[in-house]
């Protein structure tokens, strides 16, 4: 083949690859453009602070915002300590044996379990067997288990960035294993672990399938007053407003507003995590590079 035509083929090929990436960027632009332009109009102080009114055709989404915050906090309280503990075991204590490989395989498989299957699991375990009923506690626990693989992986990454010398230095001075972990590893790893935890939790905040049957409610005028009450949640509210409401066209602006608040909430959490990571890198606490 002539050099000229080879160059044309190369140019065309690279254009095709570039087009693939542009397509991905375009998807993101379309998603955000549509939600923001059509959702921004309804956002007001009342929308954020009032409960739904008049058969959910007016008013705001306040109980859903609070419900999502509560259930996300419960999920975090379960997933973060467990995830950190598991990561400490894997990175600091575990030997490279069959059991450790099995734990790692379990983590990878858990992250691939469909969210609706977590929902089924939550119904059978938390709602039924543990007698939590359909409640914010049952839903929070279900979401917590779902986020666990993310928190473990992120925590382990954070532990890996702490140089071996930190551990060895402490051990050489006569510290026990735990003293070296507590005094010389965790202080440097915890910020990174928290970054990962926030990323995991932000995913929990946007999930719908696991809370469908474990505690999310169609409509509640008040915010939940105990761990065993049902709750409204932003993602579930969006689902209801776009598919189940008796007058879907009328409430479309509310649905758009809910979608906007939901993605703002999720990406604020993400942004907080990214900024925390950036801030720590600058202070030289994270040792990644």
């Amino acid at each position: 083949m002539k050099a000229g035509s080879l160059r044309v083929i190369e140019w065309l090929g690279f254009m095709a690859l570039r087009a693939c990436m542009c397509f991905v960027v375009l998807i993101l632009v379309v998603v955000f453009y549509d939600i923001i332009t059509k959702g921004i109009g309804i956002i007001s102080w009342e929308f954020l602070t009032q409960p739904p009114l008049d058969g959910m055709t007016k008013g705001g989404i306040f109980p859903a915002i609070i419900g999502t915050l509560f259930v996300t906090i419960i999920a975090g309280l379960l997933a973060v300590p467990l995830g950190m503990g598991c990561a400490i075991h894997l990175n600091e204590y575990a030997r490279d044996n069959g059991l450790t490989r099995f734990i790692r395989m379990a983590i990878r498989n858990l992250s691939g379990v469909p969210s609706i299957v977590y929902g089924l699991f939550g119904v059978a375990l938390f709602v039924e067997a543990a007698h939590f009923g359909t409640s914010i506690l049952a839903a929070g626990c279900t979401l917590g288990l779902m986020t666990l693989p993310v928190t473990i992986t992120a925590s382990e990454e954070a532990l890996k960035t702490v140089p071996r010398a930190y551990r060895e230095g402490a051990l050489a001075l006569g510290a026990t294993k735990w003293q070296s972990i507590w005094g010389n590893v965790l202080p440097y790893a915890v910020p990174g672990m928290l970054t990962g935890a926030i990323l995991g939790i932000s995913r929990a905040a946007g999930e719908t399938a696991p809370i469908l049957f474990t505690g999310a409610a169609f409509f509640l005028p008040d915010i939940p007053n105990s761990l065993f009450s049902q709750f409204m949640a932003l993602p579930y509210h969006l689902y209801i407003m776009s598919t189940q409401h008796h007058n879907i066209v009328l409430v479309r602006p509310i649905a758009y507003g809910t979608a906007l608040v939901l993605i703002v909430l999720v990406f604020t959490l993400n942004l907080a995590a990214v900024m925390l990571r950036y801030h720590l890198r600058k202070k030289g606490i994270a040792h990644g590079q």
Partner: protein
Amino acid sequence: MNRRIKEKIIEGFFFLNGIIVIGILVGIFVILVRNAWPAFHDVSIGDMIRWPNWNPDAYTTPTYGVLPMLMSTLMVTLGSLAVAVPVGIGAAAYLSDVASPRVREIAKPVVEILAGIPSVVLGFLGIVLVGPMICKLTGRYNGLNAVNGSILLAVMALPTIISLSEDALGSVPRSYEEASLALGANKWQTVINVKIPAAASGILAACMLGMGRAIGETMTVLMATGNAAEFPGSFLGPVKTMTATIAIELGEVAYHTTHYYMLFVVGLMLFIITFFINLAADVFFHKHTRAH
């Protein structure tokens, strides 16, 4: 001595923490099996496969045929992969071999942000954006169908496929690329004939994981595919996937009835399918890391 006991206790505590993960995975499996088991007393596996439809509320005899929903899940998954695999691999090759460092800095967060969009938001866009678009293009009255679901699932699978394929391409040793260029191949020939084949098992693993995500995804298909309980006819017709069936019916079903148990059978099937897909992805991934 006291100190050593304390150390042992602490180590034991973290060991338990690690074991819990296995406990959860096994627990999910056991609970699914236990709740699915009673269904097999009432409905034989043969009937589940033979029955042409899933109609638990039938007036005479309820039927629990799982083929229609298996077929539906297969359709939307394959449809999504038809879009997500070529685009995903293309975008990954772009990021790893074509883009300048500055473009990469901007493009990589785009992929991460795409991965962070809640599925219910995409499902909503399937209703308000993709559906009407399909109506306009095909002249149909209803845009909630398998194509719609496939498009949304492609969006959900893309970030997984892109970022893992890019990792796979990035881990191909530089010497491969240099050898190819030194032999006179241009960059495009190197990407197509050397790098992508060398990263093939890693890319395959990425696509498997993307597929696992598509099969298990609930909200987007629940909202965008129309959910007709009939045997899926075409991509432009409504379908009701396995995940959507559970999502729709678990809320209405009376606990501890055959119907309730059958929904756990569907959940068990989903669990087993995604388990083996993840396992396969694992195998390919290890093959890739061992090769490089």
